[in-house]
């Protein structure tokens, strides 16, 4: 190799590495900042939620659905053959042991992020009695599993634990 070729490759190579390194902060600044990432956990008192009722709470600035399922809704969810589901999960896998009536999910449609209807009294719960997303018509069942429409996954279950019988700590 000629000396000149070496200098040419070394110089452009070093400049290329430098340019690539300069991109790191420029790209990384777009990611969530420390304050956004600071994981806020939320405590919710669920004592007032009667069977068949649901509330909409806030977790990480996003809606969270807490639903007290009736025995009929639980039976409906259990009656569905899991293999027939788009995102196969049982109600038991989506709830805590002994607390299968407490269905806690994000209120964010897994299609494009709208808030599904079905928490408040009189709202459209869709064909499967769970949640209905008004944006693009996704329908969730009583275990908040996707049954019809464009959404690819069940409503996400956030990490949570029961700190007592009436208080849930989300996050």
């Amino acid at each position, binding site marked *: 190799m000629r000396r000149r070729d070496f200098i040419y490759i070394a110089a452009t190579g070093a400049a290329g590495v430098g340019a690539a390194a300069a991109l790191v902060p420029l790209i990384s600044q777009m990611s*969530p900042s420390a304050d956004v990432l600071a994981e806020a956990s939320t405590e919710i008192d669920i004592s007032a939620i009667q069977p068949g009722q649901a509330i909409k709470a806030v977790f990480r600035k996003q809606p969270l659905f807490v639903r007290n399922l009736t025995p009929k809704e639980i039976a409906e969810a259990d009656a569905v053959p899991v293999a027939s589901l788009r995102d196969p999960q049982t109600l038991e896998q989506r709830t805590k042991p002994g607390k299968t009536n407490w269905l806690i999910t994000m209120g964010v449609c897994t299609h*494009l*992020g709208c808030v599904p209807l079905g928490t408040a009294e009189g709202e459209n719960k869709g064909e499967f009695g769970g949640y209905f997303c*008004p944006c693009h018509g996704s329908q969730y069942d009583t275990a908040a599993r996707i049954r019809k429409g464009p959404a*690819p996954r069940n409503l996400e279950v956030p990490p949570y634990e029961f700190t007592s019988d009436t208080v849930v700590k989300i996050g």
Partner: protein
Amino acid sequence: MSFPWANEYKPSHPTMVWLDERLPLPRFVYNAIGAGYPVPRNLNYMWNFGVLAGFCLVIQIVTGIVLAMHYAANTDVAFASTEHIMRDVNWGWLLRYAHSNGASAFFVVVYAHIFRGFYFGSYKAPREMLWLLGVVIFLLMMATAFMGYVLPWGQMSYWGAQVITGLFSAIPLVGNSLHTWLLGGFAPDQAALNRFFSLHFLLPFVILGVVILHIWALHIPGSTNPTGVEVKTESDTVPFHPYYTAKDGFGLAVFLFLYCAMVFFFPNALGHPDNYIPANPMQTPAHIVPEWYFWPYYAILRAFTQDFLFIPAKLMGVLAMFSSILVWFLLPWLDRSPVRSGHYRPVFKKFYWLLVADVVVLGYCGGSPAAEPYVMISQLAALYYFLHFFVILPVVSSLEKPLPLPFSITEAVLGSDDAASLTAAE
């Protein structure tokens, strides 16, 4: 490059001579949009829309810059500052209405420009680069319009941002990380609003840059024309100035008449009342739709409700929506007919109008709720849309027997031609 008979720039004033020798900017303008640019003599009014689109870009940049002097990109005050512009800022209502309706006007004009190109085969050799740059401009316009719509931080702004950025989460493996990266969070919030404002300010100038490339690419072969027959002699052309500056001026007056009617008398006709409700991350509006100019793509997005093979419905919708525009990049190679203008292509012409009708149907469905019968109609219309580009166009272009073309532009205009003299000259 230009035709050899183009007028030459001859400055008479000593100052202009002095300038021409040092920075020949007036010469550049003279050759680009002045008497130094020979243009086919037979252009019809469909050729007005390029200049009109350029004018719309200027409206948007000028009104946008002054609006930015009063707007604050902060989720706490963005909505209030928009109302401040509407109520307190001197002439603020006019500037904002001019800007929001200006976006619609820009799309009206650009759609006319694009469909002019479809009909008259403007994308064909040697103008492929010109066409490709045009598609790039359109994609940039879509991004700019979307981000601008988010800025007032009303309900439609917020949920539009949620849905459109959500499209990226459909991408396998990296989708969710990409989505979070784009938003700077897990849902649209301060970080997203601030960067959208920054990019909404930047992109129009990027568009301006690509427009300059677009015009540069135009000036190499020169404008096409309604016959699709290339310029042969000087008698086929007239200088851009004064002939087309006058014709474009007239078109501009008509455009401004309609645009001002919208701004002054129907400023909210194309908007959504929901956007006068401040953004609420807890409540999605019952009927969420994008602005009218995105309706056809939105209908295609929603047309996919079932998983197909191993591809989830969500990804299919997103892919189809992006493909519906990206297919324009392939157009110069999908349409293989040597005849440029739809005037001389009887079969193509029928399918062209079917495509126009199809896009109107898609638009109507895209603006309607996500329910039957609109979903099924969208599915059929979306299928036809892709059928047009990938099947009908290639097949028609190879089977069709075109009508006889005029010998030259002059013959098309005057009936009798100087064909004899031209042949003699050769």
